[in-house]
């Protein structure tokens, strides 16, 4: 008996040590690139950095991204909905069965009423809790969702404006806020807007963390939610600090003020490595392209010129320029991705073939083609736009392509993106350099290649119009079995690559640097991370 006690006593510390990561462990201080704390009312701003830090950790959506693996593209999995299906008799009606036993941070239950309430907050202008601020951040990411209806306590029906197989992917952006908590805020607020502001200061979602301290523009502190319905977070606390300046972020990490920084500048990476910092990166569903103008006056309306550009760019040289912090883009989706398909046009660096195609189109070094590109000097997701574009400009000169840049401010470039290449704001540009997320096929394919999406309706800036692509889009949106939908999206993507509908250049790899004390982080092939996984050792 004594021996057994001694053995247990000896093994106890080891057992405790082994179990530590499962218990709440440490505070992770994160330096974000945003200049302010992303909105905390359930529909974050600041792009996907907002979803990453104040969306997914505080809230859940009906569907969620699987962020647990680094070795494969993130796919959609059940979140607050356990399962879903499109109604075979009415393809605009979807049935979502909800996860039982889930509570909001305030203790109120998550159910079908909560889903309907959250849909109405952005889609029903008559709803008392309708919030225009959240409309722009949410409705744009669910372009076909129209309304929700309660079927029973744990089942809800969602209706779309047209058959749309992409809805479950879109729904990863609709975070569920607590109606009960909002009503409590509303009781003490002068208006619905004021109630949402109060809600943002003390939010209630169902996520793995709850907000415990919020200092506007300075910090947000999130504490682990021990009542979380899924796998609980390993870290006890996450502190978010907005540090928009890249050098300041690097200095903060090196001086020990933070444990984790987003997007260190490529120049700082060797220094960070030399100081034993971990650098995490993985190709993201992000595309840094030149989007062509297809109007007849544009030289890029000729597929041979578009293909020549795709073949002439030295992407490996560009990768060297960025210190390895990019992935060459050979399409919107890399080979092996479920939506990549099998294009017959193989994007690569082949300057001889590029010259041949240009000659066929009537251009040569003696009679070069001139292409004007609208670019920005900076901007979210734009990586290092000036040096990257200048590198490409020099590179393309060798095959007889003259590139001219129209450098404009980032916000102005966004505005122009909605106007289309025929608009005065394009100032005669033949291409525009705006990076985009490729997580959702609507945003990576449909809005660029569907003729109905031509500017100013959406971001078909190039005014591309081809009935074949409209058909392919329709097939994808009407394929309700996941395998059939993936195959249809693959056909759409492959056709786009064959027609060289973009000049594909780079994928961002989402670099982030961390102190050696941060353990357990998984860098998924996604814009998001699972903050439940890392902890401090």
């Amino acid at each position: 008996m004594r021996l057994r006690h001694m053995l247990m006593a000896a093994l106890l510390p080891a057992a405790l040590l082994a179990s530590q990561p499962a218990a709440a462990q440490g505070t992770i201080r994160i330096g974000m690139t945003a200049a302010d704390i992303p909105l905390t009312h359930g529909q974050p701003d600041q792009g996907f950095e907002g979803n990453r830090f104040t969306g997914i950790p505080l809230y859940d959506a009906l569907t969620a991204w699987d962020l647990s693996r680094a070795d494969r593209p993130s796919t959609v999995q059940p979140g607050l909905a356990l399962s879903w299906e499109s109604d075979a008799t009415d393809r605009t009606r979807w049935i979502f069965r909800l996860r039982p036993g889930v509570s909001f941070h305030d203790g109120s239950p998550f159910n079908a009423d909560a889903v309907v309430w959250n849909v109405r907050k952005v889609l029903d202008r008559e709803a008392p809790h309708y919030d225009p601020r959240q409309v722009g951040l949410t409705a744009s990411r669910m372009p076909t969702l129209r309304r929700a209806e309660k079927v029973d306590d744990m089942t809800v029906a969602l209706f779309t404006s047209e058959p749309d197989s992409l809805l479950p992917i879109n729904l990863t952006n609709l975070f569920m806020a607590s109606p009960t908590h909002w009503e409590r805020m509303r009781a003490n607020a002068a208006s619905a807007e004021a109630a949402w502001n109060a809600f943002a200061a003390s939010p209630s979602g169902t996520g793995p963390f709850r907000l415990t301290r919020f200092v506007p523009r300075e910090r947000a502190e999130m504490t682990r939610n021990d009542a979380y319905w899924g796998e609980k977070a390993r870290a006890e606390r996450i502190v978010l600090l907005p540090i928009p300046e890249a050098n300041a972020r690097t200095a903060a990490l090196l001086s020990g003020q933070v444990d984790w920084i987003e997007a260190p500048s490529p120049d700082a990476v060797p220094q960070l490595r030399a100081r034993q910092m971990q650098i995490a990166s993985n190709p993201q569903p992000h595309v840094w392209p030149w989007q062509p103008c297809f109007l007849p006056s544009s030289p890029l309306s000729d597929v041979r010129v578009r293909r020549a550009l795709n073949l002439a760019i030295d992407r490996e040289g560009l990768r060297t320029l960025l210190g390895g912090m990019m992935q060459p883009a050979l399409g919107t989706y890399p080979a092996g991705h479920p939506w990549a398909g099998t294009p017959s046009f193989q994007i690569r660096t082949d300057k001889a073939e590029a010259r041949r195609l240009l000659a066929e189109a009537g251009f040569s070094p003696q009679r070069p083609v001139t292409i004007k590109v609208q670019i920005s000097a900076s901007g979210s997701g734009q990586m290092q736009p000036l040096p990257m574009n200048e590198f490409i400009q020099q590179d393309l000169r060798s095959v007889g392509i003259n590139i001219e840049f129209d450098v404009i401010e980032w916000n102005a470039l966004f505005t122009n993106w909605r106007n289309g290449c025929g608009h005065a704001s394009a100032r005669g540009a033949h291409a525009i350099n705006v990076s985009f997320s490729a997580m959702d096929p609507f945003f990576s394919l449909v809005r660029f290649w569907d003729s109905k999406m031509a500017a100013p309706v959406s971001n078909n800036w190039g005014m591309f119009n081809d009935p074949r692509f409209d058909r392919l889009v329709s097939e994808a949106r009407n394929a309700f079995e996941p395998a059939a939908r993936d195959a249809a999206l693959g056909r759409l993507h492959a056709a786009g690559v064959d027609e060289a509908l973009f000049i594909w250049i780079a994928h961002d790899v989402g670099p982030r640097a961390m102190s050696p004390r941060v353990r357990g982080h998984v860098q998924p092939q996604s814009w998001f991370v699972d903050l439940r996984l890392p902890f401090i050792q």
Partner: protein
Amino acid sequence: MLVYLVKRVLYAIPIALAVGFVCFMLVQIAPGDPINAIVPPDAPQEVVEQVRRDYGLDKPLPVQFALWLGKVVQGDLGRSLATGRPVWGDLSSAIGNTLTLALAASLIGFVLGCVLGGLAGTFRGSILDRVATTFAVAGVSVPHYWLGMVLVVVFAVQLPWLPAMGAGPGGSADWVWDWAHIQHLVLPAITLSVIPMGIVTRTVRGIIAEIMNQEFVVALRGKGLTRFAIFLHVVKNAAPNALAVMGLQLGYLMGGSILVETVFSWPGTGLLLNSAIFQRDMPVLQGTILVLAMFFVALNLFVDLIQTTLDPRIKRA
């Protein structure tokens, strides 16, 4: 004096209107769209238009300006387009932080500037004068954001003596004057102080040197006053002009430095303006500039009044 004071306060009204109008128009003329502060760039047009209507951004510009002005008159600077928070809430905390930084930078810059300028002016042409002048020229010439980065690399990264960023271990909300917080202030305050230090040094040197050559100083010497007693007379004569320069510098510092506050992530008005500019957050931009402009007007008035008190020869109409 009272009439003068009332007049100056009344003058501030057209200044406020002009500042508000110019700021409003500048934002409108600049390329880009304030709607980008609220909707992502990939939002469909129907969503963009709906949000534009919801926020009243579809109304004619004069109507938008009049609506904004109507609220400002009632003391409401509106709500941020980007965050929905009242502008005054964010602005008041930012002003508090900038004030802290500006006062610390002023203290360093003005004290150093007066000492160096006083020495240089008193001992004109000496090695002391050359050293002080070199400091002054360096102060006004060195880009302060560069100096800030160098200070961070040396004192926060290489020698981990001081924090690299932020306004306290828990942010500025719980600011207290203890070392844990003050250490966050040291590097940005030093960085921000170099320009006023240089300007004040040069100004004080010039004024002192000029006064030292005046006949009354020769007379004081002839009367047998000590060097220190003469210096006090010189200081009293130099003070009004030096104060005017310091007042202007303090005004600039109060306006916040976008670059220094960005380098140190110091949550002041500079950082607030920086993000408002990039997001085209009109209410924040207009409210901040208006308040800062009024602050500048008030500061100038205050300096004028002190000048009058110090030097009764300065008459106010």
